[in-house]
């Protein structure tokens, strides 16, 4: 396989879809949900809190631990419940491939977990300027692209409907972090 195969996006091409819908011949990237570690790292990154220093002692995952997940402590006896929720493999088994489930408890985590809400607030606080400018920054930060006209309108409508602007922004930031575009690699 050539290195160009690794550079493909998940974008569908109608002609190829008709011939090889399962992507057996690797004409596109297979879309993937972010792994537990990447998901945690990404949340910390967009909230501006990720500590990217290398090395050091492993520490338990906790609300004040902002280090990359690769440096977090993994217990073989009792796996961290949040890693387990996002399919971190059982450390007592060999694992030839990660599962990537999509289950309701994961959505509850993104809807209601205080740590996630805290990252959303931190991210919202990083964005400066008018609502329009902040929406633009948010899209560039999370999705590396500007928002479309439709997406801008949805955002503005949502923010206008909120009890107050900062609360609305925290709720909006949380939804961007919960969106499929953020949680899947295309």
């Amino acid at each position, binding site marked *: 396989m050539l290195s160009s195969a690794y550079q493909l996006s*998940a*974008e*569908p091409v109608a002609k190829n*879809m008709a011939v090889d819908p399962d992507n057996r011949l690797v004409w596109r990237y297979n*879309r993937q*949900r972010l792994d537990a570690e990447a998901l945690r790292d990404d949340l910390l990154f967009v909230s501006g809190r990720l500590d990217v220093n290398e090395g050091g002692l492993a520490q338990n995952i906790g609300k004040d631990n902002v280090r990359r997940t690769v440096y977090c402590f993994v217990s073989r*006896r*009792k*796996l961290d*419940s949040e890693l*387990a929720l996002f*399919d971190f493999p*059982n450390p*007592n*088994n*060999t694992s*030839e491939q990660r*599962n*990537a*489930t*999509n*289950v*309701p*408890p*994961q*959505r*509850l*985590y993104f*809807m*209601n*977990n*205080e740590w996630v*809400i805290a990252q959303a607030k931190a991210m919202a606080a990083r964005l400066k300027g008018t609502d329009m400018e902040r929406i633009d920054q948010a899209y560039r930060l999370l999705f590396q692209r500007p928002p*479309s006209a*439709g*997406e801008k309108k*949805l955002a503005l409508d*949502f923010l206008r*409907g909120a*009890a107050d602007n900062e609360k609305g922004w925290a*709720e*909006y930031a*949380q*939804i*961007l972090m*919960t*969106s*499929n*575009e953020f*949680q*899947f690699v*295309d």
Partner: protein
Amino acid sequence: MMTRRDCLKTFGTGFGMTAFAGLAGAAVGGSPLNTNPLAPKPPQFPASAKHVIFLFLNGGPSQVDTFDPKPMLDKFNGKPVPDGNLKTERKTGNLLKSPFEFHKYGQSGIEVSEIFPKLGAHMDECCVIRSMYTDRPNHEPSLLLMNTGDKQVGRPSMGSWLTYGLGSENQNLPGFVVLCPGFPVIGPQLWASTFLPAVYQGTYIPNNEKTPDKLVQFIRNPELQPQEQRRQLDLLGKLNEIQLRRAGEDRELEASIQSAEIAYRMQSEAPEVFDISKESEKTRARYGDSDFGRGCLMSLRLIEKGVRMVQVYYGNSQPWDNHDDILIHRKLARDADGPIAALLEDLKSRGLLDETLVIISGEFGRTPVVEVSGLVKVQNGRDHNSHGFSSVLAGGGIKGGYVHGATDDFGFKAVDKPVHIHDLHATVLHLMGIDHTRLTYRYSGRDFRLTDVAGNVVHEIIA
């Protein structure tokens, strides 16, 4: 014909509503999206049971003090076993009679120890397997074997296999729920899905928590009102819909959208189902206010809502592990007898006993001889026993008022119609409409199954 994508484009209400419609469909059997791995699947052949409740008396209850009377023990009390003691974990001595009396119950006249009088009254509905046996007289391998079909860590739990094979009937709750006040020895490995997809893992609920909000993780938003959260999820649905249009049809993306809607609904259904205060005071009194009693009542409510399997552990660690003094069994049984009987009664009165298989068992039994290892304070208890023990089954197509198999004269070893854990598993799957040799999952280069390469269905215990 309208394609799914056209359908999405046509509906002005957005994808969130389509997912909602999918869920409404799921409630009457079968999701049109067909991406939900927990959607109910038909059994391989007509099943007599649809649900399993496994009441796990962890630690190893003694058969000769509960469900396997041995008059010969009284006669030979204090004397050595004529053929010598079988090997168990620790050093054992002479025969020790049960301090409890046995009484006959019901039409069937099945004898049960005085410490289980209320369960005894249900013997005409129960099958007592007195010839159970397992492989090791140690908790860890035996707990694993009973739960996963293997002595080593790394195989999926029976509940995971069942939800993998059959899905679940309620899309607003997990399909496999494990209740334990604290953790049994080993813990989460006992309800892990290991190499099966993680969606099939048991959802652990520490039922020593009494408020429903604490029972299910992240079930309440700490800040938002329901209508604020609904607004958030409507926005999420619209953003995901825009992205789905750009990305093209994708099962994973659709599953994620569906999961968010289920999660939203779980917030209203899960606290309700775990809230036993919804039951009448009279009902709650019959279960008692012990952890196990509340767990039994929750299991009833979960089964009522269509959950596939509920496992209720008696207690933290291994309460039934009475090496020192077998009289402790009386106290333990006091908190088990009432709730088990109440559960059987309520399953019956709510029309669920016929379709719910109830299993009452520990991971192994105990020796009919006294333990004399230096580790015990008083020598009035029993060591672990893998050679023979009793399990009680009821409902779900089980033959009531029936005793299957027997141990030897002293209750040490299963000798008549011995039933291995693999055989029990094969029988449970059979009752659920699954051929245990045909429920497989390919992992690491070969097909695995709950019973691995063993197991025979015990047809005699089936009605």
